[in-house]
C-alpha cells in the first residue's frame, strides 16, 4: 500500500494553507472563465503561465489543476443556461440541460451537473491515484522507440476522433508540428525556419500559439458573426435542489458516466468528447423515461456531465505518467511542466513525488471546493453570463496581449500573436479544429527527438519500430484509429447497399 502512503504525503502538501489558497484561486478562476462564453481552461492556463513562472512549482500546478477542473464545472453552467457549449465536451449537456432550464428545471439541471461532476470527478481521481503508479512501472521499461510509437498513436487518435474531418484534423496537427520546427534543433544546434530573426531561435512559445488560436482567433470569429446577436440567458427558476425523483434518476447515471469517462479519457482517445456522446446514448437506452429525451431529461445531463469530468481526470493519466497530452489543456499543462524544467513521465513520480502527489491530492480537495462554489453560489456566477459581449472580448484581448507580451517583453511575440490569430480565424471559419495544432506544437518536437534517438540506437534501422513488441502493437493501434472510422463507414455503406439490393 505504497500508493496510499504517497497519497497521504500528498494530502499533507495539499492541505498546507498556502497550497489550499492556490487551489481555491485555481478553482475560482477556472469556474469564472469556464462560465465566460468563448474561452476555456486551455486559454486560462496559457494566460497564467507567464505569471507563475519563477514561482513555486507545487503551488502553480495545484492552481493549474484547479483551473482545469473548475473549467469543466463552469462550462456546464454556460451550456445549461446559455446553450452555447464552450467546448465540444459540453455539447450534450447543452442539449438536454438547456431544455430543462427552459422547462423551469434549470436549478435541478445545474445541481445534477455539479453533483455528478463531483461524484464522477472523485471516482476518476481515485482511478488516477491507483492507475498512475501501475502505469509508471510499465513506462519505466519504455525506450525511445516505444515513446515514439505512443506519440504516433496519440497523434492519430487526437486527429481522427476530434472534429468531423480527418484531413482537416491532420492538417491542423501538421500545422502545429510545423510551428514546432521553428528554432534551434536540439540535437545538432542548427537553426531552422527562423527567417533570420534572432527572436525565433528559441522557437515559438506555446503560449503565443494557444492564445492566438483560442483568444484572438475566437475573438475575430465572434466579430465576424455579429449579426447573430448575443444568445439568450435562461433565468434559473424554481428550486436549485433536486427532488427525490430527480435524485433517484441521477445517481446511477453519474456512476455510469464516471465509469465510462475515466477509462476512455485515460486511453489516449481524444479527450472528453467521445465518452459524453456514449454516455448520452447509453442513458437514453436505459432510461424508463425515454420519451423525455429531447425535451429535457435529467439523465441526459447527469450522465454526460459525469462522463465529461471523469474523462478530464483520465486525461491526466497519460499526461503525468507518460508525458503525452491528449487534449489542448493537457498540452498547455505539459508546456507548463517544461517551463519549470520538469518533464512529466515515470521519472517525475520518482524525482518529484511531492509535486505529483500534492497535485493529485489537491484534485480531491478541488472537487469538494467546486461543489460548494457551484451549488450555493451558482447565482453569483450566472451574473457573469450577462457581461455584454463588447466588454467581454475587449477584456479577453487585453489579457491575451498582456500574457503574450510578458513572456519575454518582446514585440515580435505580439506580431506573431496577431498572425497566428488570423490563421486561427481562418481555421475556425473553415471548420479546421484548432486543438490538434496545439498538441502538435508540443508533441511534435518530442516525437522528433524520440524518433532520432531510437534510430541512433538502432544505427538508422527503421525496422526497430516494428520488431519491438510494444512499439509494434502501439503502431498497429494507431493504424486502426486512423483507418477504423473510414472502414466502418465503408462497411456500413456496403451493408446498406446490400440491404437495398435484397429488397
Amino acid at each position, binding site marked *: 500500500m505504497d500508493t496510499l502512503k504517497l497519497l497521504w504525503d500528498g494530502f499533507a502538501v495539499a492541505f498546507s494553507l498556502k497550497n489550499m489558497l492556490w487551489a481555491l484561486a485555481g478553482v475560482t478562476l477556472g469556474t469564472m472563465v469556464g462560465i465566460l462564453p468563448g474561452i476555456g481552461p486551455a486559454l486560462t492556463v496559457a494566460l497564467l503561465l*507567464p*505569471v507563475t513562472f519563477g514561482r513555486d512549482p507545487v503551488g502553480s500546478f495545484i492552481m493549474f489543476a484547479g483551473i482545469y477542473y473548475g473549467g469543466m464545472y463552469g462550462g456546464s453552467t454556460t451550456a445549461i443556461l446559455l*446553450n*452555447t457549449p464552450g467546448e465540444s465536451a459540453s455539447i450534450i449537456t*447543452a442539449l438536454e440541460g438547456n431544455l430543462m432550464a*427552459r422547462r423551469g428545471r434549470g436549478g435541478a439541471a445545474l445541481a445534477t451537473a455539479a453533483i455528478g461532476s463531483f461524484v464522477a470527478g472523485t471516482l476518476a481521481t481515485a482511478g488516477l491515484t491507483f492507475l498512475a503508479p501501475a502505469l509508471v512501472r510499465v513506462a519505466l521499461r519504455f525506450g525511445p522507440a516505444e515513446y515514439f510509437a505512443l506519440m504516433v498513436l496519440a497523434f492519430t487518435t487526437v486527429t481522427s476522433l476530434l*472534429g*468531423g*474531418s480527418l*484531413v*482537416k484534423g491532420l*492538417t491542423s496537427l501538421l500545422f502545429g508540428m*510545423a510551428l514546432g520546427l521553428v528554432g534551434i534543433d536540439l540535437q*545538432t544546434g*542548427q537553426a*531552422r*525556419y527562423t527567417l533570420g530573426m534572432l527572436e525565433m531561435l528559441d522557437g515559438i512559445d506555446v503560449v503565443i500559439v494557444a492564445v492566438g488560436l483560442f483568444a484572438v482567433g475566437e*475573438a*475575430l470569429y465572434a*466579430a*465576424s458573426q*455579429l*449579426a*447573430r*446577436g*448575443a*444568445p*439568450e440567458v435562461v433565468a434559473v427558476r424554481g428550486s436549485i435542489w433536486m427532488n427525490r425523483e430527480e435524485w433517484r434518476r441521477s445517481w446511477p447515471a453519474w456512476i455510469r458516466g464516471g465509469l465510462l469517462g475515466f477509462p476512455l479519457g485515460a486511453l489516449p482517445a481524444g479527450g472528453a468528447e467521445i465518452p459524453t456522446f456514449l454516455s448520452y446514448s447509453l442513458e437514453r437506452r436505459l432510461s424508463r423515461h425515454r420519451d423525455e429525451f429531447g425535451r429535457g431529461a435529467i439523465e441526459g445531463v447527469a450522465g454526460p456531465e459525469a462522463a465529461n469530468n471523469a474523462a478530464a481526470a483520465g486525461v491526466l493519466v497519460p499526461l503525468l505518467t507518460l508525458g503525452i497530452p491528449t487534449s489542448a489543456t493537457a498540452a498547455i499543462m505539459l508546456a507548463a511542466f517544461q517551463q519549470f524544467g520538469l518533464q512529466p513521465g515515470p521519472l517525475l513520480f520518482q524525482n518529484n513525488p511531492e509535486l505529483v502527489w500534492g497535485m493529485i491530492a489537491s484534485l480531491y480537495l478541488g472537487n469538494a471546493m467546486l461543489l460548494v462554489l457551484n451549488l450555493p453560489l451558482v447565482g453569483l456566477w450566472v451574473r457573469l453570463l450577462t457581461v*455584454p*459581449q*463588447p*466588454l467581454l*472580448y*475587449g*477584456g479577453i*484581448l*487585453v*489579457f491575451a*496581449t*498582456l500574457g503574450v*507580451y*510578458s513572456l519575454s517583453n518582446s*514585440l515580435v511575440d*505580439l*506580431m506573431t*500573436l*496577431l498572425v497566428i*490569430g*488570423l490563421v486561427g*480565424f*481562418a481555421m475556425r*471559419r*473553415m*471548420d479546421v479544429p484548432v486543438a490538434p495544432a496545439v498538441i502538435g506544437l508540443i508533441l*511534435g518536437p518530442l516525437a*522528433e527527438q524520440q*524518433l*532520432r534517438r531510437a534510430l541512433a540506437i538502432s544505427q*538508422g534501422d527503421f525496422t526497430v519500430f516494428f520488431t519491438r513488441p510494444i512499439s509494434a502493437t502501439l503502431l498497429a493501434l494507431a493504424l486502426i484509429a486512423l483507418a477504423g472510422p473510414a472502414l466502418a*463507414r465503408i462497411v456500413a455503406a456496403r451493408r446498406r447497399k446490400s440491404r437495398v439490393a435484397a429488397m
Partner: protein
Amino acid sequence: METPLPEQRSNPGGPSLPPQEGRRAPDAGRDSRGVLFTGDLLLALGVLGLAAFLFAGALNIRVSPSYAHIGPRFFPFLVSGGLGACGLALLAQAARRAPAKSGSLEERPAASGKPPVVGDAPKPAVYWPSVAIVAAALAGQFLLMERAGFVVASALLFWAVAFAFGSRRYGRDILVGIGLAFVVYVVFTRLLGLHLPGGMLTTMLR
C-alpha cells in the same frame, strides 16, 4: 418571455436576430455554395503553399557531414510531405464541391445518401469590418505598447474591440478600458513583479 422559445442553436443561414445595442446587421445568409467553394480552395492552396515553404526551407538547413544519423532535415521533410498530402486531399474535396455542373449541387448531398459531412452546411456571411477593426486594434497594441505604455495602449485596444463588437457607448468603454488596464498594470507590476512598459505612468506613479 414565459413561452418556451424555439431552439436557436447553430442555425447557419437562418434568420438573424434583430440588432441589439446599436449593432448593424449585415446580410447573413447571403453565403452560397460558390463562396464555400472559394474558401475550400483557398484553404487547400494555403496548405500546399505552407508545405512548399517547409520543403524549400528544409533544403536550406545545413547538415554537418560528420553527422551520420538522421539529421535536422528529416522531420521537416516528413511534416512538409504530410502537409502536401493533406493539401492535395483538400484540393480534391474542394474540386468535388466546385459550383460548375448544372446547378444541381443543392440536391447532391441528400441524393447521394452519404452521411452529411461536418462543415457542409452553408455558413453565415463574414462581417469583415468588425474583423478588420479587431485585427487593426491588435496591430495598434503592437505599435503602441512600448511607445505609449501598457495602460494607454491597452485602454485603446479595449475601446476599439468594444467598438468592433457593436458598442456605441464610447464614454463607458474608454472608462472601463482605462480602469481595467490600470488595475492590471498595478497588480502585475507591483504584486506579481512583472515588467510592463509604463509609458507616462512610470513618472506619475513614483
